[in-house]
Each structure stands twice: as structure tokens, then as C-alpha cells.
């Protein structure tokens, strides 16, 4: 019997303006029914191109060579009519549905019903019954069929996407980054759902992601792609336990196992940090450099109902300390950070900086903001695309009227952000830089003001795995060398384990657990912290095994 999906010598070349770019070459992979194959790789490794080529969804500029056998039939030589019939009914795709894979102006029920109407002759009443049944399978109430995508949360959209994918009972599902941009708990739910489908119906699943720990938890076999080639392939646990290729090791190290002493204060970087020096335990009683006391932020939603985004929080960030603020999306982390920086006026309570109350007047806030700087999640949108690196870094000092040699100030900040030699970066524009370099420019812009606290909101979420470790190492080095305090907001517990001294766990606007990293992550006391830890892919593995 032929495998469900077999790729033979698959190669994809994009031709853009006379240039030929080889995106994928010599890929040989096979998948049996009821099996899960994981494909890991960074952006640009060709993993998504492989997924799209299976249903011939690549743009016209792509040339495909080799064979793609779906149930023994070569997709590359199919006629259009046959191809359209195969699409979705034999193989369907789960895109990163949380973002843009659903049509924003059509109701989700309609979007789920569309392939059913297209591939079957079911009467309208049965189609609607089927949509209800599908929503039920992904644990969504039938009323959600009338919703538009923007009315759903990220996890709900991903469930809709999955309901849509199984609508025509395909034998193969290609899931391209199905959990990226979802927080751990929702990620665990989505992965469990996919696992159930594989187990119950003998569907073949190709799971594509940049997060190796997700694959390790869910896939029997893993293929690692790097620059268009499969550099390593084998059983999941073997690839994870004994990675042979250097790139696999880098990917595996990027997402550390919480509790692994090797990765404590040691984010994955090509330039390893010296071991954490012994430090005097910070005085737990001393007030922080940045401190919140009974801070409350209350909003009204558009129905006029009161939402307690931050419901009475006490938090200290001390000098020479990195605090990780963790929690699910919607837990109020970002609102808390905005309130700490004076970007959001608190409803009640107060913020202290260096023992003094942070003023609410705009003049007073200006002086405070020089001390407390913000680093945002997406460096691409945080930088003005028309400003050179020099302009971007010099802007802060200009606003704050800092005297002295501007050029040397900028060079110093760039060097501190490890953009070396700094001179070569001055005249470059954001689009000429890689994602990691852009985030360094954002950090340099913050450092140029010589702040004493950085507040970083998901600083590595939008970055590739290999860059992630480098940025985390930079934050850790800044703390060690400049005694720079940092509050890092993240939904990623591995990050906390990598660099933080203390963790604050936020749940529904309140801090449910605050303490040293080892204590909170290894001996969690609050139920919510426990459920966060259980949702980690490493914790997931056991649950998934049971499902398969």
C-alpha cells in the first residue's frame, strides 16, 4: 500500500525579476495514515513552501520539480478539475487561523459550510446541521456560526479553522503554524484537538512549526528543515534527545525545558555567557526601584460593563533584577505594564519610582519616562521605516534634550545593544536589517536615554528561534553589566526560566503568585500556575501520548 503522502525529490524555485531562488530542494518525506509528521524550521527554511506545494497553492512564480504523491496520485501532473476536487476533500490546510486565514467580512458558519457545499450534494438543511456538528466537535457553541472572525478570540478562530479543515473528512491535514500567536493554555487545547482527530479517524497530520518543543510533544516523527533542505529526520524523541545536526541543536536549545539547570541563566546564544555569578540574595523587604501599590485599572467595554483589567496589584522591580510577568492573553499583563509606565492612568493605587510617587502630569511623566523605557513586541512596526538607525536611536535623546555629543551617544547605545561595529549600522534603514537586528535597534533606542528600568512587552515573540536566545542573552548581559532592571512581559515560561530572577504570575487582573523563578516554576502553589506549567508542550507530551 502506498503511503498517504509521499514527497520525492521535491524542489521549489521562485523566480523573481530574473533571479532564481531555490526555496526547497531534494525533500523526501512520507506519511502513513494515522501518523503525525512534524516539520520544524525557522522562517525562510522552506517549511511552509512544502506545505503549500502539496495542494499546488504556491504563487505562479514558483516552479515545482519532483513528485508529490497524494494517495499514490501525483499532484504536480493533475489537471485543474481533478486538483480542485482533491483540494479539501482529500487534503485540507489549517493555516495560522488566529491571524488572517479567515475572510473578515463573512460569517464563520458560511466559511465552514462553503467546502461542504462545494464537494458534496447535501441539501441545505443537512449542511447547516453538519456545521453545527463540526462546531460541536471543536467545542464551540452553535451560535458562533453567526459570528464574524473579529468577534472571536485567537483560540476560537483556530478552532473554526480546524472545524473547517475536517468539514469534508479529508485523509490528510496540513497544519502550518497552527498554534503560533496563541498562549500556552490555548495552544495545549488546539494541539489536543488535532491529536484527537488523528487518533479517532486515522487522519494523517503534517504539523509545521518553528517551536521544536511543540513537535516533540505531538509528533512521532520530526523533520528539521534548514535553508530549503531537510537536515535531519527521525523519530521525535530521538531527534530531541540526540540531535545530530547543529541547527536542530540550536532550535532545541531555543525553547528550554523549564527545570533544566543547563538553561537557567543561559539562553541559547552563539556567544555563551559566563555562568551566573553568586549574588547576594536581594532584600525581599526593600521597596523596588519601580513599585506598584494596590494598582487598579478599570475599563468599560462597549456594552458599558466594567472590566477590571488590573485588580489591585502590588509589584516590585528592584535594581539589578529581571522580573518576568507571565500570564495568558487577556490576563491584564500589558495593561499593568502601560500603567507602570504612565501610559495608562490607573483608576486607583499608585506607582513609585525610586521611592517617589510617579506624577500623572505630562511634564512630570516626561522626566520619569527617561528612566523607564519600553521595548515592544514587534520591532518591524516599532521602527519608522523611513528613519535610519541613527535617527531611530537619536530621537529619544533629542526629545529629552540630552546635551553632549549625539553621535557618540548613539554609537555607545548601539554598541551596548551589541550591534558591532556600530558605525556600519548608522545609515541603514529598518528593511535592510534582520528581525533580531531590528529588535536590537529598538533596545539601543531605549538604552540611549540611559534608563534604569526596561519594560519589555513580549520582546522575542515575533523573532526566530535562533535570534530569540541572542536577544534574551542581551537583556541578561545588560542586567549584569549595567545593573539594568527589567520587567519582561511574556506568555512564555521558558523565557522566565532562561533569564528572570523572579516571576509574577498574573490571572484575571491579579498577581496570584510572585517569587523566585525556581520556587514558582518548580514548586508552584497556585492552581493557575500549575495549569500554565501543565500546558507546556513538555507537560503536554504525556497527555498527547494518551490521545494517540
Amino acid at each position, binding site marked *: 500500500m502506498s503511503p498517504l503522502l509521499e514527497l520525492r525529490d521535491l524542489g521549489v524555485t521562485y523566480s523573481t525579476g530574473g533571479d532564481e531562488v531555490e526555496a526547497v530542494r531534494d525533500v523526501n518525506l512520507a506519511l502513513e495514515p494515522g501518523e503525525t509528521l512534524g516539520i520544524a524550521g525557522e522562517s525562510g527554511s522552506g517549511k511552509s513552501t512544502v506545505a*503549500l506545494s502539496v*495542494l499546488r*497553492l504556491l504563487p505562479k512564480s514558483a516552479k515545482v520539480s519532483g513528485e508529490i504523491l497524494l494517495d499514490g496520485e501525483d499532484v504536480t501532473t493533475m489537471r485543474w478539475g481533478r*486538483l*480542485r*476536487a*482533491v*483540494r*479539501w*476533500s482529500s487534503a*485540507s*490546510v489549517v*493555516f*495560522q487561523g488566529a*491571524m*488572517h*486565514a*479567515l*475572510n*473578515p*467580512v*463573512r460569517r464563520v458558519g458560511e466559511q465552514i459550510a*462553503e*467546502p461542504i457545499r*462545494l*464537494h458534496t450534494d447535501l441539501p441545505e438543511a443537512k449542511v447547516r446541521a453538519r456545521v453545527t456538528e463540526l462546531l460541536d466537535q471543536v467545542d464551540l457553541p452553535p*451560535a458562533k456560526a*453567526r459570528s*464574524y472572525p*473579529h*468577534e472571536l478570540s485567537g483560540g476560537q478562530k483556530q478552532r473554526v479553522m480546524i472545524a*473547517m479543515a475536517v468539514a469534508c473528512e479529508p485523509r490528510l491535514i496540513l497544519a502550518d503554524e497552527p498554534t503560533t500567536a496563541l498562549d500556552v493554555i490555548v495552544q495545549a487545547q488546539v494541539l489536543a484537538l488535532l491529536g484527537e482527530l488523528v487518533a479517532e479517524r486515522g487522519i494523517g497530520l503534517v504539523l509545521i512549526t518553528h517551536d521544536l518543543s511543540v513537535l516533540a510533544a505531538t509528533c512521532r516523527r520530526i523533520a528539521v528543515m534548514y535553508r530549503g533542505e531537510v537536515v535531519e529526520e527521525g523519530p521525535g524523541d530521538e531527534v530531541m534527545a540526540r540531535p545530530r545536526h547543529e541547527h536542530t541543536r540550536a532550535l532545541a536549545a531555543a525553547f528550554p525545558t523549564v527545570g533544566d539547570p543547563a538553561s537557567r541563566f543561559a539562553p541559547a546564544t552563539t556567544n555563551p555567557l559566563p555562568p551566573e555569578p553568586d549574588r547576594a540574595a536581594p532584600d525581599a523587604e526593600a521597596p523596588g526601584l519601580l513599585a506598584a501599590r494596590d494598582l487598579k485599572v478599570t475599563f468599560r467595554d*462597549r*456594552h458599558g460593563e466594567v472590566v477590571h483589567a488590573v485588580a489591585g496589584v502590588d509589584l516590585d522591580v528592584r535594581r539589578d533584577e529581571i522580573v518576568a510577568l507571565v500570564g495568558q492573553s487577556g490576563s491584564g499583563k500589558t495593561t499593568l505594564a502601560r500603567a507602570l509606565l504612565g501610559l495608562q492612568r490607573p483608576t486607583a493605587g499608585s506607582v513609585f519610582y525610586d521611592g517617589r510617587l510617579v506624577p500623572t502630569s505630562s511634564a512630570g511623566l516626561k522626566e520619569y519616562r527617561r528612566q523607564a523605557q519600553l521595548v515592544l513586541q514587534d520591532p518591524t512596526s516599532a521602527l519608522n521605516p523611513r528613519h535610519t538607525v541613527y535617527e531611530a536611536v537619536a530621537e529619544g535623546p533629542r526629545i529629552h534634550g540630552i546635551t553632549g555629543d549625539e553621535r557618540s551617544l548613539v554609537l555607545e547605545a548601539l554598541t551596548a545593544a551589541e550591534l558591532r561595529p556600530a558605525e556600519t549600522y548608522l545609515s541603514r534603514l529598518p528593511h535592510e536589517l534582520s528581525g533580531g537586528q531590528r529588535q536590537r535597534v529598538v533596545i539601543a533606542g531605549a538604552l540611549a536615554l540611559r534608563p534604569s528600568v526596561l519594560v519589555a512587552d513580549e520582546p522575542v515573540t515575533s523573532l526566530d528561534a535562533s535570534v530569540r536566545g541572542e536577544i534574551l542573552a542581551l537583556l541578561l548581559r545588560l542586567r549584569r553589566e549595567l545593573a539594568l532592571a527589567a520587567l519582561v512581559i511574556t506568555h512564555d515560561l521558558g523565557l522566565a526560566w532562561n533569564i528572570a530572577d523572579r516571576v509574577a504570575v498574573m490571572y484575571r487582573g491579579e498577581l496570584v503568585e510572585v517569587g523566585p523563578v525556581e520556587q514558582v516554576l518548580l514548586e508552584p502553589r497556585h492552581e493557575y500556575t500549575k495549569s500554565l506549567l501543565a500546558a507546556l508542550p513538555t507537560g503536554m507530551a504525556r497527555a498527547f501520548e494518551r490521545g494517540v
Partner: protein
Amino acid sequence: MTTSTTGGPPAADLDERRAGTSTARFVAGKAGGALASLVFVMVLGFLLFRMIPGDPVATMTRDRPTSPEQLAQLRERLGVDEPLWRQFLDYALGLLSGDLGTSYLYNRPVATMIGERLWPTVLLVGTATVLAVALGMWLGIRAAWKRDSAFDRVHTGVALTLWSVPQFWLGLLLLIATQGLFPSRGMRSPDLPEGFLAQTLDVAWHLTLPCVTLLAVIYAQYMLVMRSSLLEEMGSEYLTTARAKGLRDDLVRRRHAVPNALLPAVTLVFLQFGMVVSGTVTVEAVFSWPGLGLLTYDALRGPDLPLLQGVFVVLAGSVIVMNLLAELLYRVLDPRVRAA
């Protein structure tokens, strides 16, 4: 959104009711904004035409000998010697009761004159706009879907050329090219035939040339906006989803791409509809079409200030009303605006 299906769960009903009140609030807010703009236009209309230099009485009596007594009498009748606040009060109260003043040149109520001329313009502009929108969007969608194809290049080029051609020149060219096949002036034949159908055909026959001229010049903008907004949607991931479902290419376009690309185009259509009314001055002058454009042209030659002021208020008002309609329609087309 307002009619709820029977037997729906209570939660859904609540949502619907909320949607209902928020719709009412939205409409009220937008209408309030439009009303404020109208008041502003009213004030501006008054001030603008008081600042134009020149003595209206001198203009009116330009061609005939007048005694100083007659001039003074005229001044008093027109009220130009009254203090400004008094004039404004008269103007504002008049406007509220539908009185736009009296034309200096024709000595007739401005409101009546505009009323007579409004419908021919609406007929001309309405027909041309509906055709231009249909043609422009159809071409724009085709051009974007097959970007850089011969179709795209040829039609973008032709549309841009026509867009840059002066209207009067194109009008005259069409007149010469058709060699008397269509009437060159007016809206009705002097010897008007009997019967509704015959009269309608007669108007349509007169309408052809001015309408084609206007259409040729304005369709380009609808085409280019549709083309660029569809191009923007072309890279969207939901289109890949639609293709992956096995939809035919034209269904992907019709069901998924176009409804999203339509949004920016709608705003333009309505905004332009308001503007085109004022943009017909040239076409109406060339073809002596008895509409607002021709009236404006005549009023400018005077200058007939009350008439110009009346036309200004009506045209500016129509832009505001159309803009309001666009915003309301936008809400129907885009569920995301409903939520905001």
C-alpha cells in the same frame, strides 16, 4: 441584523438587542456630525459671498441707465446696506424655511430655480455615475486579477488618458465625431412628441452625448481604486484558504476577494457622487444641459451672489449627505465597523 431568528438562544437575543441599540447610537452620532457640518456650510456660504468684492447693485444695473434714487431703492430692497448680523439672521431664517433669497439677475426665488435645475443634473450625473461605477469596477477587478496582463496595461492606459482629457474638448470631439446623430444641446426637442414613452426616448436621446462624455472622464477613478484595493487583498491568506478549499478561481474572486476590496471603493463612489454634481459645469455648458452646472455657469458670469450662494449651499450639502450615506453603507458592508 435587526430581525432575530425565532427560537434563538437568549444570549444571542441579547447580542442582537445590543447590536440594535448600538446601531441607533451610531446612526444618531453620524447624523449629528453631518448636521454640524451643514451648519458650518451655512455660515461659510454666508461669509464667503459677503467677502467677494464688487457692488451687487452696480452689477445688476450695469447695462441700463439708473438714477441714484432707483439705486437706493434697489439697495433697500436687497438689504445690502443692513448690518451684517441682520443680514445673517435673515439668511439663516430664510434657509430654514427653504428660502434661499432672490436672484439679482433673474429676479426669481433661488430655491425655485435650483429646484428646476436639480433634476436634470441628478439624471445626468446619476446615469453617468451608475455606468461609470459598473464599468470602472468591472474593469478594475479584471485588471487586478490578471495584473500586468495585456488587459491590465491597455485598460489602465486608456482610463488614465481619458481621465486627463479636458471634458469640454472630449465633448466637442464627440459632437463632431457623431456628426449630428445626437442633438447638440438641451434636454428636450422643441417639438416635444406626445406620450410618455416617446418623451422618455427623447430625453434619453439628448442625454447620450453628455452622459458618455462624463462617463469617459470619471470611470477611471473607480477602476483605479478598485484595482489597487483588490491588489492589496490579493496577497491575503484567506484567499489561499479559499483556493485550498477547491473553489474555482472566479469564485475565489467573487465571493472572497471582491467583497473585501469593495470597502474603499464605496467611500469613493459616494464622495464623488456629491462632487460630480459640481463637476458637471463644463459638460452642461458644452451641451447646454439645463442643470445645476449650467446654472452655476450663468450665476458666475453675473456674478449673481444669491444664486451662487444657493448653489454653494445645495452642492456642499449634497456632498455631506452622500458622505453620511457612505458611512452608513460601510457599516452594512463591513462587520468590523459594526463592532467599532
